[in-house]
């Protein structure tokens, strides 16, 4: 299992390394003559890069997987969640990158790191809240045996915001690279297409978790709230893990 996982990690790293190198050389090769053709090529690579980048380890997928494993949902919602996260991710990356670049042109990297740490801490606190909320919800389900749809939708938005608020350094790097080369529009479009790719991968993680939930729910039958409480505890632990590891750095 571990050997198999290590091989996947290797392929993901090698592919990202190649795409990273390809995307930067392609952006550099942009000129007036090949503008449209090359721009479309860059956006295509950015989409692929996002797809593969999100397939690597990341706390967003852990959160989505835990949420959908422990909560009854459908595939449409998994897609919605995946794209809510990726849209938040893209907006956050664009705001951070353009904001820091224009407000503090020097010391970019240092500020970028500090800002990322703050965003990561905010995200961790939000994840802890989601965990506590799910545990409470699970406990209430046990008592009431019925939840309102409104409550679940609200928690989905919180999950999406918690996972997406941390700007993806991968997206930020591409945006900044485009800014440095004065390709501003391309930078924004590349961030969007990369996020679409990431959203697709995160949605797949959500769908797989829903499948798992369907199997386990039928096993647990009327004791579905147990899964919800366990999911809440695990999300809480994930949040605490993120918070302490950011604090440690």
């Amino acid at each position, binding site marked *: 299992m571990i050997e198999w996982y290590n091989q996947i990690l290797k392929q993901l*790293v090698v592919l*990202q390394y190649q795409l990273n190198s390809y995307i930067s050389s392609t952006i550099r090769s942009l000129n007036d003559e090949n503008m449209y053709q090359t721009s479309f090529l860059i956006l295509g690579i950015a989409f692929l890069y996002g797809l593969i980048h999100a397939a690597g380890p*990341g706390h967003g997928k852990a959160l989505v997987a835990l949420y959908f494993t422990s909560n009854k949902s459908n595939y449409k919602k998994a897609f919605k969640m995946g794209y809510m996260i990726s849209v938040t991710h893209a907006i956050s990356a664009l705001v951070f990158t353009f904001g820091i670049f224009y407000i503090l042109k020097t010391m970019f990297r240092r500020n970028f790191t500090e800002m990322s740490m703050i965003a990561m801490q905010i995200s961790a606190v939000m994840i802890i809240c989601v965990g506590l909320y799910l545990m409470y919800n699970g406990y209430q389900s046990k008592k009431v045996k019925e939840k309102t749809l409104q409550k679940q939708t609200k928690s989905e938005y919180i999950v999406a915001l918690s996972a997406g608020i941390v700007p993806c*350094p991968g997206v930020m*790097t591409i945006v900044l690279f485009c800014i440095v080369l004065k390709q501003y529009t391309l930078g924004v479009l590349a961030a969007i297409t990369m996020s679409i790719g990431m959203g697709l991968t995160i949605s797949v993680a959500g769908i797989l978790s829903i499948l798992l939930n369907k199997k386990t729910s039928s096993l647990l039958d009327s004791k579905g709230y147990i899964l919800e409480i366990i999911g809440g505890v695990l999300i809480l632990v994930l949040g605490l893990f993120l918070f302490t590891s950011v604090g440690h750095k």
Partner: protein
Amino acid sequence: MKILISFILLFNILYAHPHTFIEVYPTISVKNNTTQKINFVWKLDEMTSSMLIMEFDTNMDGKFDTKELSYIEENYFRALNDYNFYTDITIKSKIQKFPNPKNFNAFIENNKLCYSFDIDPKLNVQNTLFDFGDTDFFIAMILKKEFITITGSEALVSDLDNDFYFGYRLEFK
């Protein structure tokens, strides 16, 4: 217990993915099974390089002067000591503290930021391994056979089975 360990592992492996790629170019000379010279050149990916060069090359002349070099070394390079410079040297199956790097230099080559440094050379190649990788998995260290320049011995490159992050191993034949 097995479930608990699985979840701890899950959180570790789900935590990070690489955003910076560093190509490692080792130059090693060996005599009588002992290393005489060990130099590493790290070439950072172009996108990360553009970000760092923007900060480092304050007079924007495309190279680093003494003042800029000492800024890079003090503020960025030496900080990597906390990460063992992403390199584990294993001697007789025991991981060593990475030796204090010497002769640090930074330069720009083909739009890439490069770091060059030497380490204390007296190592017995028969029981020494170099493992390159970042345990946090934010950095991916890339080593290929063609990146290695070696005299007096032969080097082998293999995948590093770290379970939770990916790396490369350099060993001597």
